[in-house]
C-alpha cells in the first residue's frame, strides 16, 4: 500500500514545520505547500495554527486558497484537520481585533476568553480535555489526556453536536470540533508529545470513512 500523503496548507502564518516534524515522526509523507496541484493531490489536509485570525483569513482569501479548499473539503469531502487558528477559521466569524468573517464550514463564532474568571489570558499550557465524540480524533486517547493549549480566543459552534471535546478554563470551552470530514482542535497536537501523535494517528486512520 502506498503511504498516505498529508499536505500542510501554507497560508503564510502558521507553524508549518512543527506540524511536519510530528507527522514525519509517524512516517507519513508530508508536504508543506500553497500550490493548488500539491494541495489537490494530497489524501489529507492540515490547516496549521499560530496566527492572528485577521491575517490568517485574509491570506487564505487573497491567495485563492479559500476557493480551492471549498472545492476540496466541501464538494469533494477531502478530510481536513484545523489546528488552533486553523480550526477557528472554519467558523462563521471571529471577534479577534474587530469582526472578520471566516469560512463558515461549521457555523459559530470565535470569541475572547473572559478574564472575569480570574485565570490568566491567554490560556497557555497543558490542560486535560474531555472528549465528547470519540471517533476519529480521540479513539485511542486515555481519559484525562493532556494537550497543549495556547490561545486567547475560542470557538463557540452554534450547534452543540459539532463539539467533539471540551476543556475547563473557567467555564467549559470548546477543545475540538467535528462535522463529517472536517475536524478541528483548539490545542496543538503537534506539540502534545505522545497524546498528540496518537491523535494524528487515529485521525488519519479514522477519518477516511467520512471522505
Amino acid at each position, binding site marked *: 500500500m502506498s503511504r498516505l500523503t498529508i499536505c500542510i496548507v501554507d497560508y503564510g*502564518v*502558521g507553524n*508549518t514545520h*512543527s506540524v511536519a*516534524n510530528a507527522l514525519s515522526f509517524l512516517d507519513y509523507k508530508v508536504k508543506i505547500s500553497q500550490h493548488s496541484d500539491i494541495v489537490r493531490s494530497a489524501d489529507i489536509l492540515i490547516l496549521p495554527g499560530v*496566527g492572528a485570525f485577521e491575517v490568517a483569513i485574509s491570506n487564505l482569501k487573497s491567495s485563492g486558497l479559500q476557493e480551492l479548499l471549498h472545492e476540496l473539503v466541501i464538494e469533494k469531502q477531502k478530510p481536513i484537520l484545523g489546528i488552533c487558528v486553523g480550526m477557528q477559521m472554519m467558523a462563521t466569524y471571529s471577534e479577534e481585533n474587530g469582526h472578520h468573517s471566516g469560512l463558515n464550514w461549521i457555523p459559530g463564532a470565535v470569541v475572547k476568553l473572559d478574564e472575569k474568571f480570574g485565570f490568566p489570558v*491567554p490560556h497557555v499550557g*497543558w490542560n486535560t480535555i474531555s472528549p465528547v465524540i470519540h471517533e476519529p480524533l480521540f479513539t485511542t486517547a486515555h481519559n484525562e489526556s493532556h494537550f497543549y493549549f*495556547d490561545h486567547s480566543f475560542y470557538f463557540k459552534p452554534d450547534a452543540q453536536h459539532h463539539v467533539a471535546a471540551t476543556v475547563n478554563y473557567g467555564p467549559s470551552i470548546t477543545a475540538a470540533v467535528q462535522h463529517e470530514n472536517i475536524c478541528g482542535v483548539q490545542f496543538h497536537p503537534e506539540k502534545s508529545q505522545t497524546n498528540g501523535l496518537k491523535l494524528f494517528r487515529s485521525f488519519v486512520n479514522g477519518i477516511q470513512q467520512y471522505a
Partner: protein
Amino acid sequence: MLKKRIIAVLPVYNGIVVQSIGFHKYLPVGKAEIAIEFLNAWGIDEIVVADITARKNQRVIQPGFIKQISKKCLVPLTVGGGITRLEDVHELIHSGADKVCVNNPVLTNPGLISEIARNYGDQCVVASIDIIRENNSLYVWDYTTKTRSTQSVAQVLQTAIQAGAGELLINSVHNDGKYTGYDTELFTEVCNQVTVPVLACGGARNAESMIQLLNATEVSAACAGNFFHFFEHSVTITKKEIAKHSDAIRIETAANYKQNEVDAYGRLIKKDDAVLEHLLYLKIEKEII
C-alpha cells in the same frame, strides 16, 4: 485542569548550550539537539532556546539551527535572540519554532511586539524581561549595556503587556546560576501587576525550589536552565517530587519514578538488588502509536 509548566531554558552561546552564571559567565553543556531530544523524552512541558550571542553579533538566531534542533521536539519550542523584524519571526515559525521571545525590543522597540502579535496572535510573543535586585530594590537590567535601565519595572511590564505580549519570561539576574532558589518576592510582585501568564526563571536548584515557587506565587511556569543537565531523567524525577505537593503537574512519561526514593540532591537512590532482580522478569508492554 490547567497544569503548572516546568520549562527548560537553554541559553545558546555560539551554537552550544551553556550554563549561565550571573549573565556573564558561561560553562559549556553540549549540543542543543541532544539536550532537546532528552528533555523531550523526559517529559518537559516546554523548551525555550535563547541565542545569547546573536544581538551582540548583530544577527538573528539562525532558522537553519532551529530546523535542526526542532526535529525531535514534540513540546512547544520558543526561540529568541536578535529578532528585530517581522520577517525574522516568519522564518523562525516556518523552521520549527512555535513562539518567539524578545528581550531588548521590550526596552527599545515595543512596536515590534505589536507587529508580531498582529500577525501571529499575542499568544505567539513572549516578552523576556531581566530584573535585578540591588539594595533591596528591583530594577530592569539591560544586558546589552550591562547596566540598569532607566525605566522602572512597572513601566516595562506595562509596556510589554500593552504592546501585546502574551506571556512574560521574567529572569532574576541576581539569582542566575547561583542555585539560591527563586526570588519569590520578585515573582509575587510581577504577578500582582499583570494578568498574562508569568514564567519564572533564575536560581532553581532542585525540585524543592520549584515547590516553594509554585506554593508562594501565582506564576504559570517554573523555568530552569542548569540543573536539568546534571543527572539522567532529571525532569521526570523533579516532576514526581513536585507532584507530592501539587496536583497541578503533568506526568505522562512511561516511567514516572513514583515508587523510587531520591537523595538530598534530587538523584535517584538505587533500589535493593532483590528488587532489581525481580524487575528483570517484568514484561512492560510498549504502547504502539
